[in-house]
């Protein structure tokens, strides 16, 4: 196994593209090294991106945030500005694994592992996050929801990698939230995850994004659920409509963590709770 530490994302892309054998990118390694240990992957080349300048930094500007691909969950949780602007994104990322995993795990890692139950992905999509994708020849910026195309599968071409995740500037009177249900309180995988991001105008929801995780092959944007709450102050009737829209959008599997019926029902219950949290974070009163 060759181990390379390129000095730029472009160089990393070139190494991944050129390799004829099995090539893998290493950031936090919380998925890759487990697969290596279990013999699921046998890399000929591992490209460690952590020596690339700025790749471990969170930069904030008037446009929003640029989160380098090697920034860990723990670092996201310690960034006061990010937590204030996008609390739902940070709480989703911080739910992944233990403190030990948080010391290494990254947002692009959670995204590119492409698990349907990835916690940070619905929150990123709800927040309108974009992935900065670098290839050997060109760089492109893609909405996060375009990256995962199925369980374990991404739309990235050979040689492409995510250099950073960008989040827009949080608008005034906006809020986001992420909730998941797991059988255990820690160290577990979501049975249902839901992220809601919304903006208020004169106390009424003006815009919303509702994204479900763990109830379909990929995270899903539920436009009908967003439509159900826009124009409202989250009265009980509206919350019921939101729950119904979320349940209707589910296309889950049965497994040891939850049955299809259970996941469909819980999606609606969690949607109501997450909407209330996002609403209050935006300054709304229930």
């Amino acid at each position, binding site marked *: *196994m*060759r*181990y390379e530490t390129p000095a730029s994302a472009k160089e990393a892309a070139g190494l991944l593209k050129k390799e004829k054998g099995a090539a893998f990118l*290493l950031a936090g*390694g*919380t998925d890759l*090294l*487990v697969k*290596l*240990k*279990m013999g699921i992957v046998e*890399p000929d080349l*591992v490209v*460690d991106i*952590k020596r690339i300048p700025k790749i471990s930094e969170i930069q904030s500007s008037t446009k929003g945030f640029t989160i380098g691909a090697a920034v*860990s969950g*723990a670092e996201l949780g310690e960034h006061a500005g990010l937590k204030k602007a996008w609390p739902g994104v940070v709480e989703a990322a911080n739910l992944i*694994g*233990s*403190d*030990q*995993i948080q*010391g*290494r795990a990254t947002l692009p890692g959670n995204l590119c592992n492409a698990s349907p139950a990835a916690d940070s992905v619905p929150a990123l999509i709800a927040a309108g996050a974009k992935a900065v994708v670098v290839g050997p020849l060109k760089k492109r910026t893609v909405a996060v929801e375009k990256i995962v195309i199925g369980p374990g599968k991404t739309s990235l071409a050979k040689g492409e990698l995510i250099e950073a995740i960008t989040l827009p500037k949080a608008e005034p009177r906006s809020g986001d939230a992420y909730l998941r249900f797991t059988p255990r*309180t*820690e*160290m577990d995988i979501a049975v249902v995850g839901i992220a809601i991001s919304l903006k208020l105008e004169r106390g009424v929801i003006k815009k919303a994004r509702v994204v479900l995780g763990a109830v379909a092959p990929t995270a899903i944007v539920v436009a009908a659920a967003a439509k159900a709450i826009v124009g409202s102050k989250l009265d009980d009737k509206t919350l019921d409509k939101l729950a119904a829209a979320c349940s209707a959008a589910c296309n889950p599997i049965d497994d040891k963590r939850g049955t299809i019926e259970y996941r469909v029902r819980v999606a609606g219950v969690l949607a109501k709770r997450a909407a209330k949290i996002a609403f209050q974070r935006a300054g709304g009163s229930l």
Partner: protein
Amino acid sequence: MSKSTLVSTTVNGDAVEFACPTDESLMTALRDRVGLTGVKEGCGTGDCGACSISLDGRLVCSCIVLGVEAEGRTIETVEGLSQNGVLHPLQQSFIDHAALQCGICTPGFLIAAKALLDRNPNPNESEIRYALAGNLCRCTGYDKIVRAVQATAKDMRKKGRS
């Protein structure tokens, strides 16, 4: 088998060099090449926390770090906790509270508990349980471990050291 690579690190305050294959975990390198067998192998997949170390001040599972990733990094293991033959307060408290039986998980719990107290000198029980959720113990049932950490936090706050 991959070719060996020379890795220069700082381990428990000392400059340490080791040569390891590129696909070897930092846990294995620390145990078999540096001789720090306080780093325990439990699951080997980042679930049990027995191999917990501090890497550049961050709590991590060394089983899911490559040895070669440690180049230029600073590592702290359980072997670095005691100073001049005096146990760290957490170590003494684990003994006093009988917070261990077989001992395999203990170094990982100590390192994780220290990481918690370094950033939060006054954790409540719930915070302690969340912070130690990545460490599994199959003997004591956690209560004694939680009490040992609470007692240490109280003592250390009283003495004003961290």
